């Protein structure tokens, strides 16, 4: 169980990105985070694994206060939390295999990894992960030779290597077209249903929220303005989150704000 308590983030330049945000995520949930661009979604996700240091508040995961642990302990927590990014964040010039293997860095022998040596089991695990997302044949390609959808699948494979209990996905499909978006989210859904991995995923499209999420929270200017089931997210509530001028339009079969 993940509990976020009174989380606040003030950047050094004075921007208040999160304002006293609290919510709870049960194990096995698929939580969607919605909100306008700049609402604080990325900041929230990054505060959970402390890529961004929160200014105040606590993040408690399975009774461990992530916000209080020391660096070495933090690495051990992070390796159980997979993360997926909008821009995929692959190392473009490294091979797909190296990118996937790098998901194992938190587990592998730190010294051997410095010369790019991984245990044979890790190689097998990486192949399985790539096989699972359907791009095993690309293992030896350079990451930047892949299409956007394929790159995101490498991102998922990298997260799989961590054998995560929780996946943070920051707008994983915002850079992809709607058809690809579904295929990527289906992988996340599969991980959520079959492997029981908790997923926290920021999304932009209302129909994707309805289709995949088991719960939704909405952020507006860093404040939590909605917390409920997708079915409770009516057009009116959606407008509250996205502002009055937001229009729901249908793009490629998906509703967008």
């Amino acid at each position, binding site marked *: 169980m993940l509990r976020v308590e009174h989380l606040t983030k003030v950047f050094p330049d004075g921007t208040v990105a999160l304002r006293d945000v609290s919510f709870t995520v049960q194990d096995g949930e698929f939580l969607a985070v919605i909100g306008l661009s700049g609402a604080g979604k990325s900041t929230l996700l990054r505060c959970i694994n402390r890529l961004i240091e929160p200014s105040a508040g606590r993040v408690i995961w399975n009774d461990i206060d992530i916000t209080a642990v020391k660096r070495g302990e933090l690495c051990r927590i992070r390796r159980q939390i997979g*993360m997926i990014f909008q821009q995929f964040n692959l190392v473009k010039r490294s091979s797909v295999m190296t990118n996937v293997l790098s998901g194992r860095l938190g587990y592998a022998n*730190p010294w051997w990894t410095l010369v790019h040596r991984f245990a044979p089991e890790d190689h097998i695990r990486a192949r399985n992960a790539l096989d699972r997302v359907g791009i095993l044949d690309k293992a030896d390609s350079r990451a930047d030779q892949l299409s956007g959808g394929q790159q995101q699948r490498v991102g998922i494979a990298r997260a799989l290597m961590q054998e995560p209990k929780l996946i943070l996905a920051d707008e994983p499909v915002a850079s992809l077209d709607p058809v690809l978006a579904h295929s990527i989210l289906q992988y996340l859904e599969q991980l959520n249903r079959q492997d029981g991995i908790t997923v926290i995923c920021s999304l932009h499209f209302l129909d994707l929220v309805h289709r995949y999420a088991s719960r939704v929270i909405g952020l507006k200017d860093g404040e939590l303005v909605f917390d409920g089931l997708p079915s409770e997210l009516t057009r009116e509530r959606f407008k509250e989150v996205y502002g009055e001028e937001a229009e729901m339009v249908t793009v490629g079969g998906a509703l967008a704000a």
Partner: protein
Amino acid sequence: MAPTTKRPSNSSWLNVLSSLLVPGLGQVLQGERTRGISLFATVIVLAGLIIWQSLSVLFIPLAALWLWGVWDTLQRERGRPSGPTAPFLLAALIVYAAGIKATEIVPRRIITGWPNIQPIVHALVRPELLKHPTEDRIGYLPLQVPCIEPLPEPGENASQEPRLHTNVRCAGMGETIILEGEGFFPEFETEIWWRNPIGDWQKVIKDGIPLTVVTDAEGRFQVSLQVPTTAVPLDRLPGPGETQTHRVEARQHKPYGSLQPTQTLSLVLNKIGETIALAFIATVLAVIFALPVSLLASRNLMWGNPASRAVYYAVRAVLNIVRSVETLMWAIIFVVWVGQGPYAGTLALLLHSIAALGKLYSEAIEGIDPGPIEAIRATGATWSQVVVYAVLPQFMPSFLSFTLYRWDINVRMSTVIGLVCDAGLGFLVIQWIRLSRYNAMATAIIAIVLVVAILDYVSAFLRQRVIEGVPSVRRRGWFRRYAVPAMVTIALLALFVWSWQVAQIDIATFVTGIPDGLRLASRFFPELITRPTEEVSVSAALPVPCGAAEPTPQPPSGPRVNLSLSCASPGDPLVITGHELPPNTRVSVRWLLPDGRYLRIQKDCCDTDSMGNFRLETKVHPLLEVNPQEEQIQPGGVAVVWKQAIGGPRPSEALTTTFNLSLVTLLMALIATTLGSVVAIPVSFFAARNVMGRSIVGQAIYNFSRTVFNLWRSIEPMILAVISASWLGFGPFAGVVALALNNIPNLAKLFSEAIEEIDAGPVEAITATGANRLQTLVYAVVPQLIPRFLAYILYQWDINIRMSTVIGYVGGGGIGQQFRTWVELDMYEAAGAAVLAIVVMVWSMDYISGRVREKMV
């Protein structure tokens, strides 16, 4: 799916065996053509290097490389291909070891040579800028060394006011004398100087430091000093019973009034003007010439018919050749043609600029998009309207930025061109270092650094404006609209006229000198192949006077020389004819003197005709006379000597030397780039904004290292070479150090920019997997940096090869040093071979780095 391991079969063993016999053969048989051939080529080249430098120890790593090839074949048969790390390291080991030997690197000299540049380094913090004018009081006194009996009168007088005395009139070397003075400034410091009979001055040393005394209240002093033992060079010491007149001098320089610029400073300021004038005139003229040339070198304009296409290729080829010979090298060539001075420097800058700008402009022309031209033409515009509205707007931005860029280079070049052609600041540096006037030299070096640094700043500003394309502000009022442009125009014109004069441009001599220049140019035609020759001679005896000896009869046929007289007296007219010699050959006709030496009868004599005959009229030389007192019985005579080829053609000595030194030059560039990179990589992190962070300390370190790199970058590599040559001695080692010192700030700046441009996304992603900092560095940062660092290193190597072809002019070794020597010895064919080698080297490096960059990006 783990990698499968196969058992080697019989044919596999054959492959492995063939790898053992010929490196790379196994790989070729396995179908890995490129891998095999590169391995083979590498082994051959490395073996060549080892033999060249006779470093037989290196055959061990070479053998290891060979065995690696065998192992690789075996591994491949088992289906486990191996990475290129091991062979790469082995090859690098061999190349660097050979390189260190070839470039004569002796790290010890960095320490042992330190005393040589200590005064220079000291001087750099104490340049001669301002000083007080002084009122001088100088007293002097002749002294004879050593004492003899009787002592002659000294060859010169002593000063009257102030006045010096000694207790003796003469002294031996190293003897102590007492010197007294009166009539000096009271209570003031006095320097004691010594002048030897040849006229060289030195300060008198006492207890290891220069001797100074302070006068008493009446302006007197008394001091004991030793006659310097090193005053007279060994070959000028007086003979037995002789004495020489020395002079001892006491000097006071009392400052008065306000600070005044030193003569050094005014000279430096003057030369700054000359430097800028040279760069300005060369750039302006180069633009004027390069524009038409660039039209001829533009593919899109010249592609129409075969004739213009031929012109295009010809112009391109000439531009490329001219460009690959460095400006400084052209300066050396022009010095031979028009003599030392600013003019030669201007011509060199001009020629190189025309070639460089011609190429850049033509690329800008080729980049013009035909779309807008078509569109404007479709509106019914005339040809000139098309040019104004469609062509110029596309061409102008690149034109401006290329011109500005060249002006930049020209100022940098003209600060150092004086190192070879007596013009501008570089001339002061080289002149003052020869005179050991280090403080003055430091002033000139600081001036160069300042000029370049200021120029960098100004042109960065201008370039920004050009790139941003600041829209011409609406000009309000007549003053802004007319007066400002008019004033700018007049200022530029005045600058042009002034520069023209400073550069001492002299079109008349240039035009009248063209035939000379062409003749000179033709002598640069490289001599690559020679046939070894042997001197062959025929001679005829000529007894002088008659009866001194019997004349020897000449054979009636075959090569022979006949004289019109069988014996003669000195001064008699004599006709010398040669018969059946090699036709159309230069022969040398000499007097054979009775003592066995010979004298050339006439300079530039003689050429045989198509029958192999020649005829020469002369007078009998007095030295031919046999002197019976000195028991010369051998009669003199006349000899005709010519060279006859033996054996087949072979590479000339110039070619072999050039080949050798080209390799040295390449290795110099390689080692300098390596040294520069090794230092630059760690320090570049201090100049990267994203690494240093926003804290005050971080900002301070960032700003400090940026400033240091920028100033350091302004020290031209040629200046560094002057300094490192006096530090480490002439030779490639000095060149390597100078280049490396120059590379450090340049690479550090480029590297820090690469670091600043690292994509933060992957770093974040790897951190999020729970990786520690070191792992994040290895997996997210290093892979992003490697290709860009490599590209910059390659680029720097490219520049270093160009630089190392000229760094030798001031003692940096390599092909440049040899080129300058050859030119100074009038050995132009050999110099031509050097030029050819440089062109080839620069071209192949351009090609290789272009290919590699293509692969990496």
